[in-house]
């Protein structure tokens, strides 16, 4: 049969979901089709977005704990003047590990993990667009994280800050392999983030449930789309920057070497062209969490949905126009100062609009003060303070005074912990029943919320004062008698409170896994599709693909849920819909589990780690990668089927 004839064939007579195949019989067949192969190899081969998302989140939380432990060590060192708990060199390593881990191994991956887990459920599809790419993304992220932390254990951790400015990180001053390990860790995590972003973008644009036009997408999915596009446009910048740094260090190029007419500031431009959008890559998913939680716990639709969506898009675009505000102290033309000050201040407008929309939703609704909403209120309070200090330091004269002081440390912890971690903890509490089938303890949740919220203010508010009093960042000690003792002691006490509170949060997660109350399918009375399936969701997510005719499908569904039918049940098949209006368009097969993404990661890891030592490793190491990728894509079944499959 020619391909042209094959393309015109009517659908094969194979089992499909529908009125004749529904209920337990259908669920049994679908469970078999969408399950992982048995054993450890099967576990490594999983391409289920829920497995990948869960692994992402748990791994990121482990990195949070590790980087948090380092923060405690730093706070112990700084709890009194002239302390000698740790020396200057070790302190350099520790703040580098803390910042690098928090930004590259915790904040971005945890958000992507949540997006990978939730997006297909929220848009009503069985899997994501490129399941094997997704699995590859997770393994590559894990390999990058292991590279950094194994180096730390072996006492060759980077000591150049999370931003790795040359010349400190260049061949002249960054002796040994510490800077190379940092740069290559960046390569791993960027590949992971980019792979996940491409998969999420295609999933959102092509796999939404019929009827879920762009204007009906949950706001969290909008936030995911915007951040995925931001990842796609910004991460190549840091990947390029770190590749040029590696080549300066390994093969003697001069990109950042002023002696040969390179420029160290080139690094800062490339790094911050990524680094500033990265802040919003972390923050925008958090605003997505907030929008979902606010709507559910206010028991009404979000006020001015179009404004919230446009704010997300506007923030995503503006985020690419402010990177130079990280470089005010390097000296700029006057017009540069004015432009980037104005741009930095302008980004507060869409964010401010979102905050007003949330407050209006709470005002108009009937709020239930349960733990997820408490975190949202804590977020609004803390983030507004961080946003205001951001507006302060957008002004060049103030920035030049406060640059590299603890005022900046206070500002970005208010923005990142207040703006991203608080909503994340709320989101974990909110979607915990979805992932586990159990509720987290409300009492323990409230205790840990208040401890985290108050402990955070105690830990970070005094840093503003320490910064104004002139305490520089990244210095391992400070002398007595400069008014720095009290703010530092308070910060150290506050950080211990936060640590205990986070521990309580984790204990709550672990204990609730077995002991929590059993969750109903929609325990919070939420409006979005992820709650239309059981808790935890089955491997195939939905027995039938739901049809959506509003922004709040579950609130409007009534007794029955409209669905489409006719997808195959003995092979993995997805329904693709049109980009704008989500009209049913195609049935495409979805990839079966495969060990090859894992093997491809192993091959990539060997190539990247060896290339720290020799440029030839790139050429030789590419061969196993090519073999693994070819095996990944090559069809495994002996002959093509009449209805296509990806085996």
């Amino acid at each position, binding site marked *: 049969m*020619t*391909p042209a004839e094959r*393309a015109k064939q009517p659908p094969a007579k194979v089992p499909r979901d529908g009125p004749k195949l529904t209920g337990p019989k259908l669920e049994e067949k679908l469970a078999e089709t969408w399950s992982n192969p048995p054993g450890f190899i099967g576990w490594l081969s999983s391409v289920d977005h829920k497995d990948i998302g869960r692994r992402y989140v748990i791994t990121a939380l482990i990195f949070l704990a590790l980087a948090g432990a380092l923060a405690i060590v730093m706070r112990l060192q700084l709890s009194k003047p002239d302390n000698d708990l740790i020396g200057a060199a070790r302190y350099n390593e520790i703040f580098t590990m803390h910042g690098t881990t928090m930004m590259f191994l915790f904040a971005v991956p945890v958000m992507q993990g949540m997006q990978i887990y939730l997006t297909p459920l929220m848009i009503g599809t069985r899997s994501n667009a490129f399941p094997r790419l997704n699995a590859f993304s997770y393994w590559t992220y894990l390999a990058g994280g292991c590279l950094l932390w194994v180096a730390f254990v072996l006492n060759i951790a980077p000591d150049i800050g999370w931003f790795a400015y040359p010349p400190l990180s260049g061949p002249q001053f960054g002796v040994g392999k510490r800077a190379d390990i940092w740069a290559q860790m960046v390569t791993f995590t960027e590949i992971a983030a980019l792979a996940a972003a491409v998969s999420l973008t*295609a999933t959102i644009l092509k796999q939404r449930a019929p009827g879920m036009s762009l204007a009906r997408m949950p706001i969290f999915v909008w936030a995911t789309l915007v951040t995925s596009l931001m990842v796609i446009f910004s991460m190549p910048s840091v990947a*390029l920057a770190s590749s040029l740094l590696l080549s300066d260090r390994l093969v003697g190029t001069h990109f950042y070497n002023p002696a040969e007419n*390179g420029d160290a500031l080139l690094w800062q431009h490339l790094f911050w062209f990524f680094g500033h959008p990265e802040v919003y890559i972390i923050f925008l998913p958090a605003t997505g969490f907030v929008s979902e939680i606010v709507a559910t716990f206010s028991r009404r639709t979000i006020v001015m949905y179009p404004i919230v969506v446009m704010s997300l898009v506007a923030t995503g675009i503006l985020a690419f126009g402010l990177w130079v505000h990280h470089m005010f102290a390097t000296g700029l033309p006057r017009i540069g100062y004015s432009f980037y000050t104005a741009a930095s201040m302008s980004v507060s407008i869409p964010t401010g609009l979102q905050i007003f929309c949330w407050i209006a939703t709470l005002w108009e609704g009937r709020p239930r003060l349960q733990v997820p909403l408490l975190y949202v209120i804590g977020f609004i309070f803390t983030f507004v303070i961080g946003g205001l200090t951001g507006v302060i330091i957008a002004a060049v004269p103030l920035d030049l005074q406060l640059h590299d002081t603890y005022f900046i440390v206070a500002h970005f912890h208010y923005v990142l912990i207040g703006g991203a971690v608080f909503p994340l903890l709320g989101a974990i509490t909110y979607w915990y029943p979805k992932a586990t089938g159990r509720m987290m303890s409300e009492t323990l949740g409230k205790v840990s919320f208040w401890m985290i919220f108050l402990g955070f203010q105690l830990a970070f508010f005094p840093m503003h004062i320490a910064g104004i009093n002139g305490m520089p960042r990244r210095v391992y000690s400070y002398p007595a008698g400069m008014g720095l003792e009290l703010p530092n002691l308070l910060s150290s006490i506050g950080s211990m409170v936060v640590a205990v509170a986070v521990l309580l949060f984790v204990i709550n997660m672990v204990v609730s896994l077995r002991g929590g109350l059993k969750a109903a399918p929609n325990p919070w009375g939420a409006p979005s599709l992820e709650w239309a399936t059981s808790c935890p969701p089955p491997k195939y997510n939905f027995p039938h693909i739901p049809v959506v005719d509003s922004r709040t499908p579950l609130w409007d569904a009534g007794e029955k849920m409209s669905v489409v039918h*006719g997808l195959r049940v003995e092979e993995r098949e997805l329904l693709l819909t049109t980009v704008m209006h989500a009209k049913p368009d195609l049935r495409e097969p979805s990839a079966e589990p495969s060990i090859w993404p894992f093997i491809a990661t192993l091959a990539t890891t060997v190539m990247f780690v060896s290339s720290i030592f020799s440029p030839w490793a790139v050429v030789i190491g590419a061969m196993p990668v090519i073999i693994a990728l070819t095996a990944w894509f090559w*069809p495994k079944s002996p002959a093509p089927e009449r209805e296509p499959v990806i085996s």
Partner: protein
Amino acid sequence: MSLQPSFIEDVSELPTHAFSYRSLTWWGIIGFMVIEGAAFALAIAAYFFLMSQEQEWAPRPWAPPGLLAGTLFTLVMLLSEIPNTMIKKAAESYGIGMVRKLLPWMVGIGLLLFVIRGFEFNSLNVLWYDNAYGSIIWALLFLHTTHVATDWGDTVVLWRLMRTPHGEDPRRLVDTDENALYWRFVWLAWLPIYVLIYWVPRLFQ
């Protein structure tokens, strides 16, 4: 599902493949094209940033790169679009015979391009460790070489795959179509890089 289903539409008649923006593969390819395009754009920005550090470009005493190999490479790339378009059209009209016939040509053109690229590296008149100018010229050419190599590897695998019975699966023709699209991107991306490597150092010396 917690709610009872109400069946409103049968989707079993929908096709199982489509070309261009209707397919997932297209969106994946576009995603990676944007990533690589962004990397090229930033490398070009770095080029101009480093250029602003010099009084002349190429800086004395280095001569600008020799034109012959680079121009020949550009011509072959532009001409390669003829078989590339033929493959793309053949794939879209399910012409498996034509696809099978033409794919080895693209593999051969790729090999020819690698040979010319070798001469290009040899005619840059500067080494990557001479100065920042040399570094960025080499970086652009190296980046583009990895680009050509990626698509060439992809084309080789596709060529072998299309010779098997799997080639008769219409979805493999969608893959062929997208591979041809990617090749367009590879040569389009080359054009500004060609100007930056070979002509800008002539114009600003």
